[in-house]
């Protein structure tokens, strides 16, 4: 059975002889791919597609995350402290990537609520669909097209603290802001579907390990109605919708179901998101994906990874509705032997 069919079987609540497995987004960072592929790792023209395809073949992954891609970022200067390039992204915010570190916001899209109210999202006409199409046409992987909605992207473009304060200080401006981001991402979802996506993944971190960033009541009144509209529009095409959010989402799972989410991804055990337990309560309405802690992949042993993966599969596979993945991106701090152990365990034939 192809990877694509494996995932569709899980979505249809069908048990198969093994559970589907794969990662969302890029899935694996370039450095871990290099470690896993060794001499097979390619550089130069077309290496991204070739390496990402090879790593999925090597591990036996069923899924690939892909995006319709925007215009290249614009380099606008050099950061005064780090000396690294400052670049403006498609949305108009400026970022830099300091040495050995993750990308950092330098200049938000707005410094005041008034500026934000005037801010208009850019046109998506120039986005390129070919990467999504290529994965669909050239592989048998389940193509999970990744985009955002309004919340996670919202604070990335404004800065976290500013965003959080404005939910109280300028609620109408923030509602309008969510709407603008969601409308733009809905356009990207439509493009992704035209390009051949098997499903849409909305990446939208809503929570810490101890609960949601904001009051669930706020999400219900000011955010979820807009998110629901977006999801319902996507689902008119018959395409399932995945949501990725880190953190403890238990207080809002019924709301996410009401919004139309089909699959909830991440399910970090450190955030009390234990899939077998969640499946008992919400398994009729939601498929769950994730649950392998990247810290286990980073600090555990292959024996521990195999044991944890087997237990999870045993407890979560009944009746389908379960896809195995790490609860976050697999990076070089994960031991290659642990990553191989997780995937090999998922491929053990089940009775």
């Amino acid at each position: 059975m192809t990877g694509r069919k494996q995932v569709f079987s899980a979505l249809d609540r069908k048990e198969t002889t093994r559970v589907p497995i794969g990662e969302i987004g890029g899935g694996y960072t370039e450095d871990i791919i290099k470690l896993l592929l060794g001499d097979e790792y390619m550089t130069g023209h077309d290496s991204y597609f070739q390496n990402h395809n090879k790593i999925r073949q090597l591990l036996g992954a069923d899924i690939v995350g892909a995006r319709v891609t925007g215009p290249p970022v614009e380099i606008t200067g050099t950061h005064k402290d780090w000396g690294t390039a400052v670049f403006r992204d498609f949305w108009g915010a400026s970022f830099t990537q300091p040495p050995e570190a993750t990308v950092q916001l330098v200049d938000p899209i707005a410094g005041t609520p008034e500026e934000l109210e005037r801010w208009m999202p850019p046109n998506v006409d120039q986005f390129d669909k070919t990467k999504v199409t290529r994965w669909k046409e050239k592989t048998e992987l389940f193509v999970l097209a990744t985009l955002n909605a309004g919340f996670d992207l919202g604070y990335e473009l404004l800065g976290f603290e500013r965003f959080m304060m404005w939910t109280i200080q300028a609620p109408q401006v923030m509602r309008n802001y969510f709407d603008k981001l969601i409308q733009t991402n809905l356009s990207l979802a439509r493009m992704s579907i035209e390009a051949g996506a098997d499903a849409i993944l909305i990446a939208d971190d809503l929570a810490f390990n101890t609960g949601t960033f904001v009051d669930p009541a706020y999400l219900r009144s000011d955010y979820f109605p807009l998110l629901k509209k977006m999801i319902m529009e996507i689902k008119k095409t018959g395409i399932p919708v995945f949501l990725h959010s880190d953190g403890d989402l238990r207080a809002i799972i019924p709301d996410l179901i009401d919004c139309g989410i089909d699959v909830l991804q991440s399910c970090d055990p450190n955030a009390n998101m234990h899939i077998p337990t969640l499946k008992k309560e919400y398994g009729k309405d939601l498929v769950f994906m994730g649950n392998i802690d990247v810290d286990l992949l980073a600090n555990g042993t292959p024996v521990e990874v195999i044991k944890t993966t087997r237990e999870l599969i045993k407890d979560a596979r009944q009746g389908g509705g379960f896809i195995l993945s790490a609860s976050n991106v697999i990076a070089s701090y994960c031991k290659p032997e642990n990553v191989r152990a997780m995937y090999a365990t998922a491929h053990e034939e089940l009775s």
Partner: protein
Amino acid sequence: MTTASDPIQQAIILGNVNSVAELVNNLLNQEQAPQSILDDHLLPGMAVVGDCFKRNEMFLPQVLMSAQTMQVAIDILRPLLMGDAMAKDRRTVIIGTVKGDMHDIGKNLVRIMLVGAGFEVIDLGVNVPAQRFLEAASQHQASIVCLSALLSSTMNNMREVVKAFRENEKLKTTKILIGGAPVSREFSDSIGADGYAPTAPAAVEKVQIFFN
């Protein structure tokens, strides 16, 4: 949510940035001691905020508003507290995200809640090398350092910071508290830190215990 009859406490809990300055100035005009305004009005208000956050009765936006309100009040009191004998041993905490890690949400939340709990917080920002923590602890005569990391890869840099402090004759007794998503009590023990806090309110409690 818990409410308070004291107007200043209420302003802190509700995050009324615009009203707190007037309320604090009124008490000063009534010749209430600045230290008493801090200890009897502001800190109890922020303690309620911390408790409510811990119980998921308040969320980040509300905590940020309360912390901003607290900051307005402290800015009024700070020059007056400087001359107050009781404020001389004002408790200083150094905080930062360790080298290689640019994540600051958790670290900022701990900073906000420490400021709210009345500590003097020196925030070194993100991607902070071990040497910078040592310099700051020495410069500010701080006896507590809080380290944050979000990534499994960078949490190991906490080990370097702890080692640097333990090998420094003058700073080896500095209390080191660690926190962040991948960090655990076992990891804290394994690197020789003095404590681990799974949440921001827990970090404040640990820091209070260290000082007491």
